[in-house]
């Protein structure tokens, strides 16, 4: 199975697999480099089933290193930004033996002082499979180390048949290398014999310039990033006519923003993706480009809604957390996504928000997304983020950080927000505090950051 992948890359020959910093690498280059790295791993005594921290963002070296480690049956821990804290967490919870850094070339060093894995990887060893550890970008505390069977993910996403028919697609590696969505983009590009275009920086102008230059057809991204493109007007500055499909995920899409995106990209199909680091990315169908309602159409994934929360069970489900109790799983093995969804009569559903982001105002529940979505319908508002703040009277109150379109004072903005929401929502949902901001704080994964109460 593992060697079959390399052979398949050989067969694809001269097709361009990766474009990284203006250099194009063919599928043959990819296969050759995977084989060369296999020898390098052996030289450094990186043994099968050793845990290896792979530090780097998308690049030709990091992509080939990931695949070489898979072929060598290692457990890979991809980390884009390796801070001291992250390394400490990984060392304590994942028992890594090696650190592989990808710059111009790969460098491998041993990691000392990691505790014994104490059987955490036994099932992978027994199956003779490679592994993958994803670190959750949890909003609080230590990231969760989520263990997957990498063989299962590769088999699921790459399949056994080559699907290189038709014109190869250029796909932008917008999502990060250590994110389930990023890996999904990469495997999706390789599956169709397409080209993974690697961005240097993920700024709206740079991404739009790449789309124009490489005639990119598929952009997997997030609602927040799409709004940054619209706010900056980059879709008018660059020729983005090559785009056929924009997939958005990682956070819920406000309906009003979707309407703005449709207006800006009338010829592009918009598809909502849905996935979690624990269950992988599911194949989805949006009700239409204009709808935030979607359906999970994936033979690999079952779903159900319990008390408003979406629960998933998939064949490529994670094996467990290495540093947390698996309380996200129900007794019967379903993963609680923490996403609150609403279903319509046709079997489509839409995400209303995160269970952890519900604001409780004196016992009344407020979902930030509902307000954000309505506010984005105002012609005077460019962007906004809604969150709860604690107070000793009603428990929490609703706060909104708003970026106005054009000049406005805070008092004017607050009056506008209150006016705009009055008669559209219940009184308790109207923000008590409105802050005027220059830009919404965005995480490195291009999700909105809501201040935690």
């Amino acid at each position: 199975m593992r060697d079959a992948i390399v052979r398949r890359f050989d067969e694809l020959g001269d097709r361009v697999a990766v474009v990284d910093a203006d250099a194009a690498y063919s599928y043959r280059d990819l296969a050759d480099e995977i084989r060369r790295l296999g020898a390098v791993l052996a030289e450094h005594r990186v043994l099968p089933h050793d845990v290896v921290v792979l530090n780097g963002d998308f690049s030709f070296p990091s992509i080939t290193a990931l695949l070489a480690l898979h072929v060598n049956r290692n457990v890979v821990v991809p980390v884009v930004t390796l801070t001291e804290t992250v390394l400490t967490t990984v060392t304590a919870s994942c028992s890594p033996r090696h650190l592989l850094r990808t710059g111009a070339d790969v460098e491998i060093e041993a990691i000392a002082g990691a505790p014994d894995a104490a059987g955490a990887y036994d099932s992978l060893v027994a199956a003779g499979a490679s592994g993958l550890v994803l670190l959750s970008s949890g909003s609080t505390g230590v990231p969760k180390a989520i263990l997957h069977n990498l063989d299962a993910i590769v088999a699921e996403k790459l399949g056994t048949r080559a699907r290189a028919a038709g014109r190869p697609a250029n796909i932008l590696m917008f999502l990060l290398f250590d994110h389930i969505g990023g890996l999904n983009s990469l495997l999706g590009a390789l599956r169709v014999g397409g080209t993974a275009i690697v961005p240097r920086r993920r700024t709206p102008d740079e991404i739009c310039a790449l789309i124009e230059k490489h005639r990119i057809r598929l952009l997997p991204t997030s609602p927040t990033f799409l709004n940054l493109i619209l706010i900056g007007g980059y879709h008018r500055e660059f020729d983005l006519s090559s785009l056929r499909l924009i997939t958005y995920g990682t956070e819920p899409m406000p309906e009003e923003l979707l309407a703005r995106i449709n207006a800006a990209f009338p010829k592009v199909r918009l598809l909502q993706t849905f996935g979690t680091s624990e269950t992988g990315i599911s194949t989805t169908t949006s009700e239409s480009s204009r709808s935030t309602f979607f359906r999970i159409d994936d033979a690999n994934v079952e779903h159900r809604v319990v008390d408003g929360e979406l629960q998933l069970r998939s064949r490529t489900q994670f094996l467990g957390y290495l540093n947390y109790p698996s309380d996200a799983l129900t007794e019967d093995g379903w993963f609680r996504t923490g996403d609150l969804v609403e279903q319509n009569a046709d079997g489509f559903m839409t995400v209303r928000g995160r269970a952890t982001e519900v604001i409780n105002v004196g016992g009344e529940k407020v979902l930030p997304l509902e307000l954000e979505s309505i506010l984005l319908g105002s012609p005077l508002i460019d962007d906004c983020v809604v969150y709860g703040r604690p107070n000793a009277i009603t428990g929490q109150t609703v706060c909104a950080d708003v970026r106005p379109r054009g000049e406005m004072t805070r008092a004017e903005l607050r009056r506008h927000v209150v006016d705009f929401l009055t008669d559209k929502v219940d009184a308790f949902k109207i923000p008590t505090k409105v802050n005027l901001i220059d830009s919404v704080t965005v995480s490195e994964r291009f999700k909105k950051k809501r201040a935690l109460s």
Partner: protein
Amino acid sequence: MHDQLLALITGVVEELNERRSEKIPTEDLPGVVLYGDAGVFDSMHLVNFLALVEEALEDEFDVEISLTSEKAVSRRVSPFSSVRRLIDFIDEEMRLAAAS
């Protein structure tokens, strides 16, 4: 200082009155009961009112004071029993803020 604070709170009440069918009388504002049996606000409207006062204080005096803190809520004499008490509380908090 009390006069300035009264003027500031009057401004906030006038703004709120624009949206209220039942207006809050502004002639004898210091005596108006904010919260409780005879209060003009329920808890949500009180929080809303206090947030506006906080914002006005920030704009006018460049000082950040929380009027919904545990401290405000747990005082023996509630700062929400009347506008006068609220002004006393704000004045006290502003002195503390200036001293620190």
